[in-house]
Protein backbone atom coordinates (compact mmCIF):
# COMPACT_ATOMS: atom_id res chain seq x y z
CA UNK A 1 0.00 0.00 0.00
CA UNK A 2 1.21 3.50 -0.81
CA UNK A 3 2.36 5.33 2.29
CA UNK A 4 1.50 8.98 2.16
CA UNK A 5 4.42 11.38 2.38
CA UNK A 6 4.61 13.98 5.13
CA UNK A 7 3.77 16.71 2.59
CA UNK A 8 0.62 14.89 1.49
CA UNK A 9 -0.48 14.29 5.06
CA UNK A 10 0.19 17.91 6.05
CA UNK A 11 -1.88 19.19 3.12
CA UNK A 12 -4.70 16.83 4.09
CA UNK A 13 -4.40 17.56 7.83
CA UNK A 14 -5.56 21.13 7.24
CA UNK A 15 -9.04 19.75 6.46
CA UNK A 16 -8.98 16.13 7.59
CA UNK A 17 -8.50 15.30 11.30
CA UNK A 18 -7.51 11.70 10.55
CA UNK A 19 -4.47 12.91 8.59
CA UNK A 20 -3.20 14.78 11.64
CA UNK A 21 -3.66 11.55 13.58
CA UNK A 22 -1.37 9.77 11.13
CA UNK A 23 1.30 12.47 11.44
CA UNK A 24 1.05 12.14 15.21
CA UNK A 25 1.54 8.37 15.08
CA UNK A 26 4.56 8.84 12.82
CA UNK A 27 6.36 11.27 15.14
CA UNK A 28 5.11 10.72 18.67
CA UNK A 29 7.96 8.32 19.49
CA UNK A 30 10.73 10.67 18.36
CA UNK A 31 9.24 13.71 20.08
CA UNK A 32 8.67 11.72 23.26
CA UNK A 33 12.31 10.53 23.25
CA UNK A 34 13.58 14.05 22.66
CA UNK A 35 11.54 15.44 25.55
CA UNK A 36 12.33 12.50 27.82
CA UNK A 37 16.08 13.04 27.46
CA UNK A 38 15.63 16.80 27.93
CA UNK A 39 13.56 16.47 31.12
CA UNK A 40 14.76 13.17 32.54
CA UNK A 41 11.42 11.74 33.59
CA UNK A 42 8.44 10.05 32.00
CA UNK A 43 5.77 12.09 33.73
CA UNK A 44 6.92 15.41 32.30
CA UNK A 45 7.78 13.77 28.99
CA UNK A 46 4.12 12.75 28.60
CA UNK A 47 2.83 16.16 29.63
CA UNK A 48 5.16 18.07 27.31
CA UNK A 49 4.65 15.66 24.40
CA UNK A 50 0.92 16.33 24.66
CA UNK A 51 1.53 20.09 24.75
CA UNK A 52 3.80 19.86 21.70
CA UNK A 53 1.22 18.06 19.59
CA UNK A 54 -1.62 20.33 20.73
CA UNK A 55 0.46 23.30 19.65
CA UNK A 56 1.26 21.62 16.34
CA UNK A 57 -2.44 20.95 15.76
CA UNK A 58 -3.28 24.57 16.48
CA UNK A 59 -0.74 25.84 13.93
CA UNK A 60 -0.82 23.13 11.25
CA UNK A 61 -3.08 25.24 9.03
CA UNK A 62 -0.34 27.87 8.87
CA UNK A 63 2.51 25.40 8.28
CA UNK A 64 4.59 26.32 5.24
CA UNK A 65 6.96 23.77 3.70
CA UNK A 66 10.33 25.50 3.36
CA UNK A 67 12.25 22.39 2.39
CA UNK A 68 13.13 21.24 5.92
CA UNK A 69 11.61 17.97 7.15
CA UNK A 70 8.32 18.17 9.05
CA UNK A 71 10.09 16.71 12.09
CA UNK A 72 12.28 19.84 12.24
CA UNK A 73 9.13 21.90 12.80
CA UNK A 74 7.94 19.50 15.53
CA UNK A 75 11.34 19.49 17.24
CA UNK A 76 11.28 23.29 17.23
CA UNK A 77 7.89 23.30 18.94
CA UNK A 78 9.12 20.67 21.43
CA UNK A 79 12.24 22.76 22.08
CA UNK A 80 10.09 25.82 22.90
CA UNK A 81 7.76 23.78 25.10
CA UNK A 82 10.72 22.36 27.05
CA UNK A 83 12.31 25.82 27.35
CA UNK A 84 9.06 27.23 28.78
CA UNK A 85 8.84 24.30 31.16
CA UNK A 86 12.39 24.94 32.43
CA UNK A 87 11.60 28.62 32.86
CA UNK A 88 8.30 28.04 34.62
CA UNK A 89 9.29 25.30 36.99
CA UNK A 90 13.02 25.91 37.49
CA UNK A 91 13.38 22.17 37.75
CA UNK A 92 16.51 21.71 35.74
CA UNK A 93 17.87 18.69 37.52
CA UNK A 94 15.34 15.97 37.99
CA UNK A 95 16.97 12.72 38.98
CA UNK A 96 14.95 9.86 37.66
CA UNK A 97 15.21 6.13 37.52
CA UNK A 98 15.28 5.36 33.87
CA UNK A 99 13.25 2.20 33.64
CA UNK A 100 15.22 0.80 30.75
CA UNK A 101 18.54 1.32 32.43
CA UNK A 102 17.26 -0.12 35.66
CA UNK A 103 15.82 -3.09 33.84
CA UNK A 104 19.19 -3.83 32.28
CA UNK A 105 21.12 -3.29 35.49
CA UNK A 106 18.84 -5.45 37.62
CA UNK A 107 20.12 -8.48 35.79
CA UNK A 108 23.67 -7.76 36.87
CA UNK A 109 25.66 -8.10 40.04
CA UNK A 110 24.14 -5.89 42.79
CA UNK A 111 27.58 -4.73 43.94
CA UNK A 112 28.42 -3.16 40.59
CA UNK A 113 24.85 -2.06 40.03
CA UNK A 114 24.96 1.10 42.14
CA UNK A 115 28.26 2.28 40.75
CA UNK A 116 27.22 1.67 37.15
CA UNK A 117 23.88 3.34 37.65
CA UNK A 118 25.54 6.31 39.35
CA UNK A 119 27.95 6.73 36.45
CA UNK A 120 25.17 6.55 33.91
CA UNK A 121 23.08 8.98 35.88
CA UNK A 122 26.00 11.41 36.14
CA UNK A 123 26.48 11.22 32.39
CA UNK A 124 22.81 11.87 31.63
CA UNK A 125 22.76 14.75 34.09
CA UNK A 126 25.82 16.22 32.40
CA UNK A 127 24.06 15.87 29.04
CA UNK A 128 21.12 17.84 30.46
CA UNK A 129 23.47 20.63 31.52
CA UNK A 130 24.57 21.15 27.91
CA UNK A 131 23.01 23.95 25.83
CA UNK A 132 19.73 22.78 24.19
CA UNK A 133 21.11 22.45 20.66
CA UNK A 134 23.95 20.21 21.85
CA UNK A 135 21.48 18.04 23.73
CA UNK A 136 19.37 17.83 20.59
CA UNK A 137 22.40 16.77 18.56
CA UNK A 138 23.21 13.92 20.97
CA UNK A 139 19.58 12.79 21.10
CA UNK A 140 19.25 12.76 17.32
CA UNK A 141 22.57 10.95 16.97
CA UNK A 142 22.34 8.27 19.67
CA UNK A 143 18.64 7.89 20.42
CA UNK A 144 17.20 8.50 16.96
CA UNK A 145 20.34 7.10 15.29
CA UNK A 146 20.30 9.71 12.52
CA UNK A 147 23.20 10.23 10.16
CA UNK A 148 25.05 13.55 10.23
CA UNK A 149 23.30 14.54 6.98
CA UNK A 150 19.87 13.87 8.49
CA UNK A 151 20.73 15.79 11.66
CA UNK A 152 21.94 18.68 9.54
CA UNK A 153 18.54 18.78 7.78
CA UNK A 154 16.56 18.67 11.00
CA UNK A 155 18.70 21.29 12.73
CA UNK A 156 18.93 23.53 9.67
CA UNK A 157 22.73 23.48 9.46
CA UNK A 158 25.40 22.12 7.15
CA UNK A 159 26.87 18.68 7.70
CA UNK A 160 30.24 20.27 8.44
CA UNK A 161 28.69 22.44 11.14
CA UNK A 162 27.11 19.36 12.72
CA UNK A 163 30.45 17.51 12.80
CA UNK A 164 32.13 20.48 14.39
CA UNK A 165 29.30 20.90 16.92
CA UNK A 166 29.56 17.20 17.82
CA UNK A 167 33.30 17.59 18.43
CA UNK A 168 32.79 20.63 20.67
CA UNK A 169 29.96 18.86 22.50
CA UNK A 170 32.11 15.84 23.36
CA UNK A 171 34.96 18.03 24.57
CA UNK A 172 32.62 20.14 26.74
CA UNK A 173 30.91 17.06 28.14
CA UNK A 174 34.21 15.46 29.04
CA UNK A 175 35.39 18.60 30.82
CA UNK A 176 32.15 18.78 32.75
CA UNK A 177 32.41 15.12 33.80
CA UNK A 178 36.00 15.58 34.94
CA UNK A 179 35.10 18.63 37.02
CA UNK A 180 32.14 16.77 38.56
CA UNK A 181 34.38 13.83 39.36
CA UNK A 182 36.95 16.13 41.00
CA UNK A 183 34.26 17.80 43.06
CA UNK A 184 32.94 14.44 44.18
CA UNK A 185 36.41 13.30 45.23
CA UNK A 186 36.89 16.54 47.12
CA UNK A 187 33.65 16.05 49.02
CA UNK A 188 34.48 12.39 49.75
CA UNK A 189 37.95 13.42 51.01
CA UNK A 190 36.45 16.09 53.26
CA UNK A 191 33.92 13.64 54.70
CA UNK A 192 36.71 11.13 55.46
CA UNK A 193 38.78 13.81 57.20
CA UNK A 194 35.85 14.70 59.44
Amino acid at each position, binding site marked *: MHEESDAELIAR*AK*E*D*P*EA*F*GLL*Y*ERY*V*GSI*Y*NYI*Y*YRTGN*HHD*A*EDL*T*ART*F*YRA*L*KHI*SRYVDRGAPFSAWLYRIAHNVVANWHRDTKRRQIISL*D*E*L*VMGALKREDPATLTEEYE*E*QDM*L*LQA*VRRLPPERQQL*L*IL*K*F*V*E*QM*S*NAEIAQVMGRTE*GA*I*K*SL*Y*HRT*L*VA*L*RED*LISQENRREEITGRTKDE
Partner: protein
Amino acid sequence: MNKTRMAEVLAAHAEGLIGRPEAMQRLDMTAEERSRLTPLFQLAERLRQSMQPVRPSAAFVRSLGRELVDNARRQVALAKRLRRAAMIGAAALGSLVSIASVVGAIVFVVARLRARAQARALHAPTG
Protein backbone atom coordinates in the same frame (compact mmCIF):
# COMPACT_ATOMS: atom_id res chain seq x y z
CA MET B 1 45.85 16.99 14.16
CA ASN B 2 43.75 20.00 13.26
CA LYS B 3 40.20 20.64 14.46
CA THR B 4 38.57 19.80 11.14
CA ARG B 5 40.31 16.43 11.03
CA MET B 6 39.34 15.74 14.64
CA ALA B 7 35.71 16.61 13.91
CA GLU B 8 35.78 14.35 10.82
CA VAL B 9 37.19 11.40 12.75
CA LEU B 10 34.79 11.80 15.68
CA ALA B 11 31.80 12.13 13.34
CA ALA B 12 32.86 9.00 11.47
CA HIS B 13 33.31 7.14 14.76
CA ALA B 14 29.79 8.20 15.86
CA GLU B 15 28.36 6.96 12.56
CA GLY B 16 30.11 3.64 13.24
CA LEU B 17 28.48 3.45 16.68
CA ILE B 18 25.02 3.63 15.14
CA GLY B 19 25.71 0.89 12.61
CA ARG B 20 27.29 2.82 9.74
CA PRO B 21 30.94 1.74 9.78
CA GLU B 22 31.72 2.82 6.19
CA ALA B 23 32.74 6.37 7.12
CA MET B 24 35.27 5.10 9.66
CA GLN B 25 36.67 2.59 7.18
CA ARG B 26 37.27 5.36 4.66
CA LEU B 27 39.35 7.35 7.16
CA ASP B 28 42.98 6.40 7.31
CA MET B 29 43.60 6.99 11.00
CA THR B 30 47.12 7.05 12.42
CA ALA B 31 48.03 5.43 15.74
CA GLU B 32 48.77 8.87 17.16
CA GLU B 33 45.33 10.14 16.17
CA ARG B 34 43.70 7.06 17.65
CA SER B 35 45.47 7.40 20.99
CA ARG B 36 44.75 11.11 21.17
CA LEU B 37 41.05 10.62 20.52
CA THR B 38 40.57 7.51 22.69
CA PRO B 39 38.99 9.40 25.66
CA LEU B 40 36.44 11.02 23.34
CA PHE B 41 35.76 7.70 21.59
CA GLN B 42 35.12 6.14 25.00
CA LEU B 43 32.81 8.97 25.98
CA ALA B 44 30.86 8.54 22.74
CA GLU B 45 30.55 4.81 23.46
CA ARG B 46 29.20 5.54 26.94
CA LEU B 47 26.69 7.95 25.42
CA ARG B 48 25.62 5.30 22.94
CA GLN B 49 25.03 2.84 25.78
CA SER B 50 23.25 5.31 28.05
CA MET B 51 21.04 7.00 25.49
CA GLN B 52 18.78 4.14 24.50
CA PRO B 53 15.43 4.87 22.88
CA VAL B 54 12.54 4.85 25.34
CA ARG B 55 8.95 4.02 24.51
CA PRO B 56 6.00 6.07 25.67
CA SER B 57 3.30 3.89 27.24
CA ALA B 58 0.82 2.50 24.73
CA ALA B 59 -2.10 3.81 26.80
CA PHE B 60 -0.67 7.33 26.70
CA VAL B 61 -0.08 7.21 22.93
CA ARG B 62 -3.61 5.90 22.29
CA SER B 63 -5.40 8.36 24.54
CA LEU B 64 -3.44 11.40 23.32
CA GLY B 65 -4.03 10.31 19.72
CA ARG B 66 -7.78 10.09 20.33
CA GLU B 67 -7.86 13.48 22.07
CA LEU B 68 -5.93 15.11 19.24
CA VAL B 69 -8.16 13.69 16.51
CA ASP B 70 -11.29 14.76 18.43
CA ASN B 71 -9.78 18.19 18.87
CA ALA B 72 -8.85 18.35 15.17
CA ARG B 73 -12.45 17.43 14.28
CA ARG B 74 -13.76 20.27 16.43
CA GLN B 75 -11.21 22.64 14.92
CA VAL B 76 -12.22 21.70 11.35
CA ALA B 77 -15.94 21.99 12.23
CA LEU B 78 -15.36 25.38 13.82
CA ALA B 79 -13.42 26.59 10.78
CA LYS B 80 -16.28 25.42 8.52
CA ARG B 81 -18.85 27.20 10.69
CA LEU B 82 -16.76 30.37 10.65
CA ARG B 83 -16.41 30.17 6.87
CA ARG B 84 -20.17 29.68 6.49
CA ALA B 85 -20.88 32.57 8.88
CA ALA B 86 -18.46 34.75 6.93
CA MET B 87 -20.18 33.84 3.66
CA ILE B 88 -23.64 34.55 5.09
CA GLY B 89 -22.36 37.83 6.52
CA ALA B 90 -20.87 38.81 3.16
CA ALA B 91 -24.10 37.89 1.35
CA ALA B 92 -26.18 39.88 3.85
CA LEU B 93 -23.86 42.84 3.50
CA GLY B 94 -24.08 42.57 -0.29
CA SER B 95 -27.88 42.50 -0.13
CA LEU B 96 -27.93 45.50 2.20
CA VAL B 97 -25.68 47.43 -0.16
CA SER B 98 -27.92 46.60 -3.13
CA ILE B 99 -31.10 47.56 -1.25
CA ALA B 100 -29.43 50.75 -0.07
CA SER B 101 -28.39 51.62 -3.62
CA VAL B 102 -31.92 51.01 -4.97
CA VAL B 103 -33.38 53.17 -2.18
CA GLY B 104 -30.72 55.80 -2.86
CA ALA B 105 -31.54 55.79 -6.56
CA ILE B 106 -35.27 56.19 -5.85
CA VAL B 107 -34.64 59.05 -3.42
CA PHE B 108 -32.37 60.71 -5.98
CA VAL B 109 -34.94 60.42 -8.79
CA VAL B 110 -37.78 61.67 -6.57
CA ALA B 111 -35.67 64.61 -5.42
CA ARG B 112 -34.78 65.46 -9.04
CA LEU B 113 -38.42 65.29 -10.09
CA ARG B 114 -39.48 67.48 -7.18
CA ALA B 115 -36.80 70.02 -7.94
CA ARG B 116 -37.82 70.10 -11.60
CA ALA B 117 -41.50 70.55 -10.67
CA GLN B 118 -40.62 73.41 -8.31
CA ALA B 119 -38.55 75.09 -10.97
CA ARG B 120 -41.39 74.75 -13.47
CA ALA B 121 -43.84 76.26 -10.97
CA LEU B 122 -41.54 79.26 -10.39
CA HIS B 123 -41.03 79.99 -14.09
CA ALA B 124 -44.67 79.43 -15.10
CA PRO B 125 -46.34 82.60 -16.58
CA THR B 126 -48.70 84.20 -14.08
CA GLY B 127 -52.15 85.62 -14.85
